[in-house]
Structure formats: C-alpha cells, structure tokens
C-alpha cells in the first residue's frame, strides 16, 4: 500500500516520459533518475515508449542522411526562375 502511494505521488507516466527526454540531454538528478528507472521497471507501457522513442530518433537521423531527391525534389520551373535571378545579379 505504501509503495503504491509512493509511486502515485512521485512518478507517473507523464513525468517519466518527460524525464526520458530530459535525460537525453542532461544528466538527471539522483532523485529523478531513481523515479524514472523505478517507474520504467513497473510500467510496461512506458518501457515500450522508451524503446519506440529510441527507434524514432534513429529513423529521423537516418532520414536526414538519405540521398537527396528521395524524399523531396524541387520544382524545375522554380529552379529555372532562381537561376535567371542569379545570372542577372552576377
């Protein structure tokens, strides 16, 4: 009972997912770190979230390394206009 109360009081899914993000960039305080890992150990949803979040990060990083033109390509007409503008100013 005491444990349940403590968990409810000190951590929840919302704070844990926030702390995961925060822990990515700075080192968490001892208390925050304890709360986070404790919650992750007991909450299957948040541990799944953690896994997927890591995966999304990798995918986004990967996307930026894709060959140019695979995702977006510039309109030829716009390119042509831009080119003329540059030639004019040279």
């Amino acid at each position, binding site marked *: 009972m005491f444990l349940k109360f403590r968990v409810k009081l000190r951590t929840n899914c919302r704070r844990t997912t*926030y702390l995961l993000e925060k822990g990515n960039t700075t080192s968490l305080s001892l208390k925050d770190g304890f709360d986070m890992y404790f919650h992750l150990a007991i909450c299957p949803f948040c541990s799944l979230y953690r896994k997927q979040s890591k995966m999304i990060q990798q995918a986004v990083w990967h996307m930026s390394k894709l060959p140019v033109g695979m995702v*977006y390509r510039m309109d030829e007409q716009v390119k042509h206009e831009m080119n003329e503008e*540059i030639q004019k100013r040279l």
Partner: protein
Amino acid sequence: MYTIFGYIQFKSFSPGTESAGVLLFLEMNNKEKLNAPMWVKNYADFLYNFALQRVNDEEQAHDLVQDTFLSALEKMDTFEGNSSELTWLRSILRNKIIDFYRKKASSRMVKISQDADEGVSDFFDENGIWKEAHIPKPFAVEGHDRMNTKEFYSMLAACMKKMPGLWTAVFTMKFMDEEKTENICKSLRITASNCWVVIHRAKLSLRECIQRNWL
C-alpha cells in the same frame, strides 16, 4: 584570372618547377573558388531538401533557398575558403531558418510552454497515467528491413509535417543535426526547460502518428 595565370606558369615551366604553379593556385582569391552560375544546378535540390525538412512548408522552403542564394551572392567576398561551397551555403541557409523561427516566435508563439503543456494533457489523465486511447502499443510492423523502406520514410515525413512549426524546428535540429539542446534553445531564444517540454510533446505526437499509420 589568377587561375589562368597559374595554369600558364604551370605549363610553361619545366617539370622541376611544378610547385610554383601549385603555390600560385593556392594563392588564388577565395571568391574565385565559388562557382555561382552552377549553384542552382548543383545545390538547389540539396538545400531545398534541407529547408523543407525543417520548415514543413514548400513555399517557405522555396523562399528560404532563394534568399540563401541571393545573400550568398552578396557575401561572396567574405567566403574564406576554409569549407566547401556546399557547407558554406548550408550554414547560410541554417541561419536563415533560425531567423525565420525567431521572427515567428517573437510575433505569436510566446506562450509555448502553456500550449505544449496543454498538448501533453491530451495523452495523460489527471494522475499522469496514459489515457486508454493513447497507450503505446507495439508497432504492427517492426524489424529493420521494413523500417528502411521508402514508404516508412514518406510516412515519417508526413507525420513530421503535421507537427507545429516550432516543434519541428527543435526536433529536427536535435535529431538531424545533432545539435546540443542548449545551442538550439539559445538560437531560438527559449529556455532549456521549455525546450525539453517541446521535444517531449513532439515525440509523443510523432509516436502516436506512427502507431496510427504504420500498420
């Protein structure tokens, strides 16, 4: 002009004095290393890609790329020749994007922290527990092979397109350019804790979107 001079020198001397030609080539004006007439052909697609992934608006991305080329033309004298042409153009574009978001932030998105907090409460109930509808479920298709497909990336791009502008800025800068969070916040002029809130919110909604669409 120096290039031609260097070339003549190089040709006219005997093989023993090759280094003279090379030296002259190195002393050439930095400005002449830039090949402005070919910029659009060589770099427009790359820069457009770069801009569009960060601003999520095609018109805006066109304008940003155009601005980049024009201000690069004006700044040609300041090119130091330490980096490649593309790196130089990209850094100009990056600053343009940051300026764009800064202008936006100062005009209307001052209450980011409140907005972001409201958004997060969509996912959690008053006790901070996942709401029934938003509980993370395993993605229907996992595994590396399926993740690397074109469909997955276009879906991811579509999901990122749905995020509000500032989130995309923070999110892409963090995970694409691998910038330090402090630098991002400083250049966009938001506090560090707001930055985490924005990233948290962006990640939640992106994950949700993928779960919904990646079946």
